[in-house]
């Protein structure tokens, strides 16, 4: 497909990301999305439809009781990881559509990993601290 006389500037077609990256990215987005259908539903019901207060919102003590339960704690941790992954994959999709080159894309991917780890780490710290007060 060599145009000897190019009529407009067009970058050569090369692979900016390793093969299979896009497939994995799509796969993770779909899997976390599917998980969120369940996890988010559970989370919403638990925090808006269970307690008798206005809007189903828990008071401080009720929050501590809730998060002190080991099963709940585990589910909420899974929820945190799934929602952070899905959110940052979606953000990645929007960013990739902005026309960056190969190097910028790698930096975006690296940045998103860092942000993801930081978010999950903070979340774990948050629920861990609250659970320990229960």
């Amino acid at each position, binding site marked *: 497909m060599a145009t000897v*006389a190019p009529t407009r500037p067009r970058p050569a077609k090369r692979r900016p990301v390793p093969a299979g990256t896009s497939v994995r990215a799509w796969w993770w987005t779909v899997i976390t999305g599917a998980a969120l259908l369940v996890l988010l539903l559970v989370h919403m019901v638990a925090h808006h439809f269970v307690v008798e207060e206005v*809007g189903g919102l828990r008071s401080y003590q009720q929050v501590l009781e809730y998060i002190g339960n080991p099963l709940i704690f585990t589910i909420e941790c899974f929820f945190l990881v799934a929602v952070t992954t899905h*959110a940052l994959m979606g953000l990645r999709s929007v960013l990739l559509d902005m026309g960056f080159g190969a190097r910028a894309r790698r930096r975006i991917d690296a940045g998103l990993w860092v942000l993801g780890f930081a978010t999950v780490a903070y979340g774990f710290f948050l629920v861990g601290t609250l659970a320990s007060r229960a």
Partner: protein
Amino acid sequence: MSQTTTTPGLPGQEERAQRGPVLRKGIGPTPTGWFDPRGRALGTWAFSVNRITGLGLVFYLYLHLAVLSLLLAGESNWNDFLEIATTWVFLGLDVLLLFGILFHGLNGIRVALVGTGIVPGRQQALFWAFTVIGTLTLAYGAIHILGSA
């Protein structure tokens, strides 16, 4: 698949070397044109709103983590927040959030089914089916949220 050769001196060759204007649909600079779905088909509306709700939900995620940090600061701080959280404005925003979650979630199921090649040809039917489900759920949720105030 084009193969042009450099036959020198073809008329108009220098003019053709300059790229003419490229017309784009939608407003805003070129990479952001996706959020203007005016005059477009159903699938683009779904995509556009999916993105906007997605970005809104990412923003909400971090906002939520920040708000939850009030719990670390003790009971009275959390109670102050609860007072705001039960005002009409806040509950109204909650309903908006519910819409965002429902649209993004249900449309996400549609995108997953279509975009993984499971039901590639059925995207419009799926959209309307999910619209019905989503509207009913939103109505129920809105009544519950606003009704509890």
